[in-house]
């Protein structure tokens, strides 16, 4: 099974549902063990975020962190990237608005489920906004990572309603990814099957852009 220790110690500061990330992962692994027996932990933890009764709120909070990151990314891109073409500006604005709506919906869902929404993380996208080209390059990475994060979490979601909501959001992330790729002259889907990422892999991927 995956090492529950944080791959990135600085990310331990990211609180998920009031727990440190490390505690969250340990707890979810234990919860999975409790439900399925210790021998079953590994397959269920792999590619998943949580299994316990509180797991769905944990997943929603994890998704919220990613949506905050994306929303901040597009807001800053629109503000800072010089010489964005009209089409790209329009696309970035549309995507930013979508990500803002995802943030609002996830926040409401977490509160509605009795959880505590995480705060927006501090972000630093380095020199991604130096040009339209560098902006689109990182946008593609973030969108592809977002799709893989939701796809990885999906099978661990216990509530049918939360699964439906996550599916509704991930399809939009995938559409964003397809459009960004198209704008870069790439094929909209790099593979016939989108990858799924574990929590660890997602956190590792976004680590360079999260400052707190």
């Amino acid at each position: 099974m995956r090492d529950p220790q944080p791959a990135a110690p600085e990310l331990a500061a990211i609180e998920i549902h009031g727990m440190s990330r490390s505690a969250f992962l340990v707890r979810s692994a234990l919860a999975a063990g409790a439900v399925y027996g210790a021998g079953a932990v590994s397959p269920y933890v792999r590619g998943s975020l949580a299994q316990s009764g509180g797991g769905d709120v944990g997943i929603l909070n994890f998704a919220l962190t990613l949506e905050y990151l994306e929303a901040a990314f597009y807001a800053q891109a629109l503000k800072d990237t010089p010489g964005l073409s009209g089409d790209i500006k329009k696309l970035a604005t549309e995507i930013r608005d979508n990500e803002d709506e995802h943030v609002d919906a996830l926040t409401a869902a977490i509160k509605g489920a009795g959880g505590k929404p995480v705060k927006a993380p501090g972000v630093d996208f380095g020199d991604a906004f130096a040009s339209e080209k560098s902006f689109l390059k990182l946008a593609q990475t973030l969108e592809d990572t977002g799709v893989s994060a939701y796809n990885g979490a999906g099978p661990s979601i216990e509530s049918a309603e939360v699964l439906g909501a996550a599916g509704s959001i991930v399809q939009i992330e995938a559409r964003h990814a397809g459009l960004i790729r198209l704008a870069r002259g790439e094929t909209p889907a790099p593979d016939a099957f989108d990858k799924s990422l574990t929590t660890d892999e997602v956190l590792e991927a976004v680590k360079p852009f999260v400052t707190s």
Partner: protein
Amino acid sequence: MAEQIERSEEPQRSAVAELRDDAASRKRFLKMAGAGAAGGLAVLFAACGGDDRSGSTASETSTPAATATETPAGMSGDLEIVNYALTLEYLEADFYAQVIDSGLVKDKKLADLAKALGQQEQEHVDALKATAEKLGGPAAEKPRTKFEDVLSGGLETVLNTAATVENLGAAAYLGAAGGIEDKDILAAALAIHSVEARHAAALNELVGRSFKGDGKLEGSLPDGAFAKGMSMDEVLEQVKPFIAS
């Protein structure tokens, strides 16, 4: 970062491989939300702008999707969903094959795109067919398709039809996901769902539809920031014109 994304291929491959090889071994039934959780989450669905569809696609009771896939035994329900998806993928793969054969697409980049999308649909066919057989089968037969009118309509009609079919495909997977009981089949369905969405968005863009489709394709296009699922009945009704048998 690049290595991260690269590395992630491994779990995906193994998930798909397991789906093919070991689908029944780690079956887990989705737990339905308790009444309390459902009540609290109503907020989300209100925010999604769908009081029925976006919420009910994943609901076990009282939705067209759930009714269509409702069977007493879990695995036979999954087989039905897999065969439904397989039928749609057959349709898509055959469409792209016919489009490429027709020679209608002269632009090299567009032709490359059609080939790439068609290839991915064929991979979906292969994976779903293997899955249906693994579940005890029988796998759905390849439907006889009817794209003559579309092809004779020229390139614009072809691209618009491709967009229509891809958006329907994405909506179909989203609508069916909540009814899937086997975790590994759900993982595979999600991995395909987002690829259909990528295709759909690219084709919408190529035919000059906005992100929301400019009012066309009502039902299968996202309502802004939130995508909507469609029931099996709704999807089959819309693809009927393309199926000869």
